[in-house]
């Protein structure tokens, strides 16, 4: 598992994304406004670039017309067919057991090199380290 500086933190504005290549992998990095998330850039459905997808809070409804927005659940919507993936887990809402994208950890790191957030074999981390974004793979 290696850690890679992938961008300057101010390079990805809130709500925007950036496609990066790390160790030969195509990765979509998002600034959700409250933090950074990274997932495989390739949609498992037909391979569209998820970095081009709209990021939005998860919408739910108790009943018809009773819309709610789940603030802490952030989804990326595939630009081709609209499939939504949870940026924290990589899971598809519609078919969570079969369809998922790999998620990575992204962290913003200070100059001392400390990494915020846990490591995981399943997820990768992206952090802004001072002015630089560091992705761990």
């Amino acid at each position, binding site marked *: 598992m290696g850690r890679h500086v992938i961008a300057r933190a101010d390079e990805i504005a809130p709500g925007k994304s950036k496609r990066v290549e790390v160790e030969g992998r195509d990765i979509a990095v998002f600034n959700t406004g409250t933090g950074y998330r990274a997932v495989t850039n390739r949609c498992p459905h037909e391979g569209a670039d998820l970095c081009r997808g709209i990021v939005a809070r998860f919408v739910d*409804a*108790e*009943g018809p017309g009773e819309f709610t927005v789940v603030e802490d659940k952030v989804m990326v919507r595939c630009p081709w*067919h*609209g499939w939504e993936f949870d940026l924290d887990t990589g899971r598809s809402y*519609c*078919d969570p057991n079969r369809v998922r994208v790999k998620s990575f950890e992204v962290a913003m790191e200070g100059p001392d090199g400390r990494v915020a957030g846990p490591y995981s074999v399943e997820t990768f981390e992206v952090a802004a380290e001072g002015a630089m974004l560091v992705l761990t793979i």
Partner: protein
Amino acid sequence: MLDDATPTIGPIAGLGAIDCDVHPRLPVTADLLPYFDAYWREQAPYRNIDRLELTGHPVSLPPYRREGAANGTAAEIASGLLDPNGLSAAILTLVNGTQALYDPYMADAFCQATNRWLAAEYLDADPRLRAALVVPFQHPEAAAEEIRRHADDRRFVAVVALAMGERPLGQRANWPIYRAAAESGFALSIQSGNVYRHAPTQAGFPSYLVEERTHMAQAAASQTMSLLSEGVMTEFPDMKIVMAGTGATWIFGMSWRVAKDWRGARVETPWIRESPEKILERQLRLTVGPFDAPSDMDPVLVDVIGSPDMLLYSSDYPHAHAGPAGAWPRALPEDLAPALARTNPQETYPRLEV
């Protein structure tokens, strides 16, 4: 593959089967007079109103009526269907023009009178008979009242809707009807009638009968999508939706396609919280008489429909189909007969006591 082998009632013999789709004759004004109020008792003859026949259901024409079943009275249904097939119950669904009238108060009056006539002429005459209420979809509040009036008469087990009405059935204007139905466990029985507010196909008016008959399935699919998307299937889980007389093969492509397209359009209807085919499997029921699948595809047929729980035995009597009245569809495995003719109807129509 079409084949000529004659189907038989074999698989349902001895089961005390429940027939989920049987049609009474259409009442004429003289039949309804005793059940009208003073205004309509005068007005119906005054306006020369006779049988309210739907344009698309000319019941007087031979193809719509089994030979020898011209009367469609309770006695005739008993001798032509209930007795020979040993049925324990048969559910009458009346498809006529009451739901096509423009005048909402007239529709209400004719529906009320028709339901009272059904009770007197059929339900009182034979304890095996049950019926679906005819209610005015033109006037949903009155329709809901009519359903609540019959909440204690458990011989009425369903509410009739037409597959091709004024607007998609799932829309909120109709919800008073579904709320009343669900409260008392009525099913919604959707019949392939047309009020001709719109062309009978999504592409416009066809030239030939074969087109119109074939495209009935489009209406069934449209109403299924409406009731699913608008949330009726999830808001009123106590009201099963029965698609009657439209076959089952239209469901294959539709349920697959909606399960797929829902993944991309879920944000519009987030009240659909699980893959649509699971909701359809729970709420949608399809009658099997007439059935529209070839007999050589039975091993996979039920799987692609969804589940054997979705199928209901029916004869569509007195409409003419191959074989004796109530013959078992050759495309379906015979070992499904107890489920289709007993278990599934009892779960679909909780008011039905047999």
